[in-house]
């Protein structure tokens, strides 16, 4: 009886030591859940979710402070992916945060731009090039369509333009038929 207790006790202590060592040795700095959530977010950095960017929103979701339906640029696809990851039920996008729309980018009307640099300071992904009293321009490939540069512009020279479909990003249309297994009557 006593031997068994001592043996178990020693075993428990040993395992505890190993676990304790492993916890320090293999410590992961950041929360992997945050990384996983962040990977699913569109990285628009628009702040429509009320957080200061995609990562803060990911942290808030991980902490249970924010819901999964606060990201308008991601739309239904992102909500479904988040629901999948977190084992929650998908829900419709919260209209308080905006509506989902196809991705757009902005363009600067270079005739009107006065070179005030306010949009450059607002751009979360450094997609605007320019300097004080020099004309600015948007690097279209890097623009995430967050529209954060529009409000600060004193001369309203920044406009939203749709991303034009080209052969490189064109998707074959899905045939419009009934769901498999659904019986057509008549």
């Amino acid at each position: 009886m006593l031997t068994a207790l001592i043996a178990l006790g020693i075993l428990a202590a040993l395992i505890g030591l190993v676990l304790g060592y492993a916890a320090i040795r293999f410590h992961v700095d950041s929360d992997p859940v945050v990384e996983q959530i962040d990977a699913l977010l569109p990285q628009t950095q628009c702040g429509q979710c009320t957080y200061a960017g995609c990562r803060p929103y990911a942290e808030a979701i991980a902490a249970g402070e924010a819901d999964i339906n606060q990201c308008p640029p991601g739309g239904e696809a992102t909500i479904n992916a988040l629901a999948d990851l977190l084992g929650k039920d998908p829900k419709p996008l919260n209209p308080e945060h905006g509506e989902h729309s196809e991705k757009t980018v902005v363009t600067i009307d270079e005739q009107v731009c006065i070179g005030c640099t306010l949009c450059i300071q607002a751009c979360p992904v450094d997609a605007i090039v320019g300097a004080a009293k020099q004309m600015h321009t948007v690097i279209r490939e890097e623009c995430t369509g967050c529209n954060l540069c529009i409000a600060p512009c004193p001369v309203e020279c920044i406009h939203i333009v749709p991303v034009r479909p080209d052969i490189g990003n064109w998707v074959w249309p899905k045939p419009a038929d009934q769901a498999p297994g659904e019986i057509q009557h008549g």
Partner: protein
Amino acid sequence: MADSAASFRRPSPSSSTRLHTFHGGLKLAGHRELTAARPILPAGVPPLLTVPLQQHIGTPAECLVAPGDAVFKGQLIARQVGIISAPVHAPSSGTVVAVEERPVPHPSGLLAPCIIIETDGLDRYRDAADTALDYARMAPGALCDLIREAGIVGLGGAGFPTHVKLGRDKHSIELLLINAVECEPYIACDNRLLQERADEVLEGVRILQHAVQPQNCIIAIEDGMPEAEAALRTALAANNETDISVVRIPEIYPSGGERQLIRIITGKEVPSQGFPAEIGIVCQNVGTAAAVHNAVIRQQPLLSRIVTVTGDGVARPQNFETLIGTPVSHLVACAGGYTQDVERLLIGGPMMGYAVADDHIPVTKTINCILAVSHEEMPAPPPAQPCIRCGKCTEVCPADLLPQQLYWYAHSSNLDAAQDYSLFDCIECGCCAYVCPSHIPLVQYYRHAKTEIWAREKRTHASDLARQRHEARLSRLDRIKQEREARMARKKQALSADGGSSEIKKATIQAALERVKRKKEQAGMAPKNVDNLTAEQQQLIAAADNRRRQKNRGNITE
């Protein structure tokens, strides 16, 4: 393996190569009699050529000409970008009138960048190169470069740059397989090419042999084209060729698919999403071989190709030697124009082709067939019915996939599951949709799923980039803030260290004043509004100057 390799070398007409089979496939009505017995006609030089910058798999070429430039036939007008890419040459002489987006042959009907050349009708080269290169003395790498510079891509339909296929692991290539299996109905351009120019094809094959140095070389030909086979065998016999053998294979669609043909000839399977070179095989189309011949012997880049214009929708179906960039409408006119029965215009064959709404699109390097069909010939499919899980699609799939499962997953947008079921091994041959009793447009589902997966990958890539840029920005702003704080702290420390009223502080201020003064002198601060002054005003100025001078002197002596 050993005995089959030995039989590869045997050039006898009744080649005893043991053939293998691939799973599935279909026996289809050929419809080739429309064009296979008629000679290839030149389509001529149309007034305008529209040459797309992308006519191959890979990165689009980069335009080198501007509107107004005169170009001669064969001039490089767009250069290759990166490795998987191909240059583009002017198909005829004339003037570049525009470099802009135009409709191109693509199922989307979207525009893509093109170079538009107004031809002068002279069709002249800058200098006629009559000296054939002695390729046998050239290094295989140099030959490969020559083929790359000629802008040659796979002319069978996929348009993969030929130099990439040739350049891959060439030391370990066992077999060079020349594909003369034109398995899709209606198409007869390779058939006619072999009947009329077997010598050129053979020369091209020999050049390819020299470029890849294979142990064996086989030309695979379908048993439905006896005239072409006879012409090829005659050419082989005339050249006393013993290294190249001709193998006749049964006519089953899609035996002309690269993977299927390799399976038939060698029994080997190309790895999933891999290349034939990984199992020691290079496969090239006969049309490509003829283009290689032109590039090396005539030193002409790829400027034209043979296109089958056929179907009940055109008056005189025919094969045409067509300049790249020729409008499809011009070719249809060459074939006698549309008949009254015409219903649809397809680019490619009836199984893998796609319908287009506009015939003002140009012929590119990869278009082998233009098919104008009547309603009787190819009625529009009836509405799709639900899948009844009959499994017929699985029986005919030449890629050994489960089309039904792929359909289910593509339909429910479960793209990951579709990829798990090897969606990307689907060659889009159309066999499954052809046999489907419910008329489900299966291939369109797979094409949708494939393009959607690519689009998703692009989005992920873009968002990864946005994340990186955002994080870089945050860390930069943070660094700037810290640097400013550190600077302020240093200054504060410097000021408080010497009590605030010491000589150092005074000297610093004095030095700053001196600096400002020097700057002012250098800038030549001239007083303004000093022209046409009255005597009274001048006196006032002199008095003020005097005062300032005395004050300055006082400051300095202090």
